[in-house]
């Protein structure tokens, strides 16, 4: 087992120091960010909402952060994470960091934060992500050890979790959870100023931030539910940054001269899941030849170009190219309608067949157009797809888990922000998992082994084997990874991030 060590080299420290020195001396100006909905609490441990995570990331810090170029976990409040033995990790913490109220950040803050999340009485919705923790031990003020129940390879991923922020123990204990939920105190680049619920959260730059003060002095997150209003505000100068821009609005924003679009690929992947096990009842999809025919019938690249305007990247093995475990050597089935028809005839369907195409509203960009395109491709080879659309995500998930999604499902998966193939494959291919409609004894073993080993090379091998198997058995039609599309005022240097966390603390003013 290879020990996984994250080092901050002397060169990097020097480079960071130079960068901090070259930044603008004092934060200035005001930037307003439009969010589609408000956070329900300012307490990062007590929600799982994207908008809340975005605000939290400006007030708080996590133990590790995500490198915006490689998307790999990188040092943050924890300067290094070392594997002492397969179930014990030692974290060396950054010295000289203080919370906004003056309280020092120490190993006690880490122990308090982890134990707070794990305490069942706390009712933290992210508790499930931390049940692998067995114990937290304070070695000294700046060293902490985490013991895990069994070898846990995703530790680094989980320590970057936007929700898993470090909290000031004294402040939280003294003031109580209810006060903290409205008056957050962290170690982050911005200090909390005011929260007008349903309206706005106002933050002020932390001039003493341990990584150097941010460039923008006042940061306002405004709640604007309607996209058209968000865009109007952007064009009239009322807001400076917005997210979730519909692809058809890109030209209007680019033409305006006051704002530009920044887009990048994100973790969510889109795929066609087939009921290969016949979990919702016997059907033609239990025959691998039919599933291969469907793979040959759908032209994924054309969907990416024509429907999504090129704003997506192919994911031929089903997992996101940014996630650990993705194997670039995996090739998709070639688009070949003649081969599809031939396979269908061999399977006993020379005149085609009828099948359900389940779709749902919410996460898939331009879902209706994508579904129509798929119906067209299937129709060309004689597969008559009938759409069953779920307008309510809750209903969709209930049907998914309840073994009721017969036929093909236009599905997507967001990885719960974990950049690792375990996050998508385990739930979809491990026997008895709620979303598994395609299972095989061999896959269970590979998935379990990959989950219980911390050696990256071994894990990569297992996921490559799994991807080859999934493609060979044609359990899915793997399609593509989506993009996040954001718009920003031309006054700022700011780019969208692949983990969908808006890093406005890293934005700078254009000269």
């Amino acid at each position, binding site marked *: 087992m290879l020990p996984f060590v994250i080092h901050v080299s002397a060169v990097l420290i020097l480079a960071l120091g130079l960068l901090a020195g070259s930044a603008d001396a004092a934060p200035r100006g005001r930037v307003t960010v439009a969010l589609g909905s408000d956070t329900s609490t300012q307490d990062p441990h007590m*929600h799982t909402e994207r908008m809340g995570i975005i605000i939290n990331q400006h007030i708080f810090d996590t133990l590790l952060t995500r490198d915006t170029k490689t998307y790999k976990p990188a040092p943050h409040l924890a300067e290094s994470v070392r594997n002492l033995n397969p179930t014990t990790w030692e974290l060396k913490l950054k010295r000289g960091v203080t919370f906004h109220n003056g309280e020092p950040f120490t190993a006690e803050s880490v122990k308090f934060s982890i134990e707070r999340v794990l305490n069942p009485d706390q009712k933290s919705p992210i508790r499930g992500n931390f049940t692998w923790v067995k114990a937290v031990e304070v070695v000294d003020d700046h060293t902490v050890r985490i013991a895990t129940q069994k070898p846990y390879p995703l530790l680094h991923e989980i320590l970057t979790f936007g929700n898993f922020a470090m909290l000031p123990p004294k402040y939280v204990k003294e003031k109580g959870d209810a006060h903290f939920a409205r008056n957050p105190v962290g170690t982050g680049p911005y200090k909390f100023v005011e929260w007008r619920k349903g309206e706005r959260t106002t933050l002020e730059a932390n001039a003493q931030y341990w990584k150097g003060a941010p460039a923008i002095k006042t940061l306002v997150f405004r709640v604007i539910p309607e996209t058209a209003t968000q865009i109007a505000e952007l*064009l009239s100068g009322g807001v400076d940054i917005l997210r979730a821009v519909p692809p058809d609005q890109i030209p209007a924003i680019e033409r305006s001269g006051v704002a530009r679009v920044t887009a990048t690929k994100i973790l969510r992947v889109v795929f066609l899941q087939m009921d290969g096990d016949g979990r919702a009842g016997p059907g033609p999809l239990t025959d691998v030849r039919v599933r291969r025919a469907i793979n040959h019938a759908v032209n994924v690249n054309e969907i990416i170009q024509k429907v999504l305007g090129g704003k997506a990247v192919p994911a031929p093995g089903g997992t996101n190219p940014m996630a650990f475990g993705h194997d670039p050597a995996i090739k998709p089935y070639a688009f070949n309608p003649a081969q599809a028809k031939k396979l269908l005839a061999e399977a006993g369907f020379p005149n085609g067949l009828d099948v359900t195409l389940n779709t749902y509203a919410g996460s898939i960009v331009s879902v209706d157009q994508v579904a129509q395109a798929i119906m067209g491709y299937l129709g060309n080879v004689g597969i008559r797809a009938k759409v069953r659309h779920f307008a309510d995500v809750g209903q969709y998930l209930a049907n998914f888990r309840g073994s009721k999604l017969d036929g093909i499902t236009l599905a997507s998966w967001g990885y719960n922000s974990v950049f690792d193939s375990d996050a998508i494959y385990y739930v979809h291919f491990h026997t008895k998992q709620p979303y598994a409609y395609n299972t095989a004894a061999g896959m269970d073993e590979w998935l379990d082994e990959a989950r219980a080993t911390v050696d990256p090379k071994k894990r990569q091998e297992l996921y490559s084997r799994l991807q080859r198997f999934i493609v060979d058995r044609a359990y899915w039609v793997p399609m593509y990874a989506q993009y996040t599309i954001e718009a920003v005022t031309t006054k700022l240097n700011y780019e969208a991030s692949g983990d969908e966390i808006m890093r406005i603390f890293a934005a700078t003013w254009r000269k």
Partner: protein
Amino acid sequence: MSTYVTRRLGQALFVCLGISLITFLLLHVVGDPVLLLLPQDASDADILLLKQKLGLDRPLPTQYLVFLAGALRGDFGESLFTQESVLALILERMPATLELTVAGMLVGLGIAIPLGVVSAIRRGSLVDRLCTVSAVAGQAMPIFWLGIMLIILFAVTFRLLPASGRGTAAHLVLPAITLGAYLAPLTMRLTRSGMLDVLTQDYIRTARAKGVSERVLLFKHALRNAAIPIVTILGVQFGRLLGGAIVTETVFAWPGVASLAVKAIRTYDYPVVQGSVVLLALIIVLANLATDVAVTYLDPRIRLGEERA
């Protein structure tokens, strides 16, 4: 009079009860909040545990009675996401919604009544026709579209007013006009027809023959009598306005109860949806009750009729 009010109060209570039952049933039939609260890979055991914690494993009638008993004590439960009191959440947002609704009503009446009176006096004239056409157009215009158009015109193109949000008086202008434009057409037509009806009455002719000035005749004798249907319909209109406020609040990012309810619907925070709907319904019922009582003062025939009965 007191019998009348008591009877109306009884009816109001019955209406609220009906609304609470319908809201409760609809919310419990259409979806399951548990799956939205848990991570997508939650186990069946986690799901069951959360159902038990939220009391969702109990039979529907029991759940409804628990909700009702709480609501009668002013306890609408807690938000599934923030664990805050639903009543506190709603009351926090109520001033914004009432501010918008009252402003919308004032703008609506401010446009509708003068135009209605002018249309009636100048019946068949160009002004009357223009008013009628505008009223039809106004009624046909979706509130959402009008809101966006006003934003594009006054915030983006001319940069005269803020596009959205709440704060200064300037922030109230566009949402109030949008909501007012939603109310105005029907009220204008009612004013016009009411005035036309009254202006042909014998007592108006008598008053005119006695030499009463046109202004006194119009505003003291005619408009007061024409006001009865306008006030009667105002209660109903108030309900429509609150409905319109849902869209207006969303378009203008106005932080009121309606936008709270819309977010709660999206996230399936059913105690918040339930509480918002029942409390908004209560306001509408009370507004109707208030207008009914007001009409009895404006029109003694109603009051007397009741007392005779």
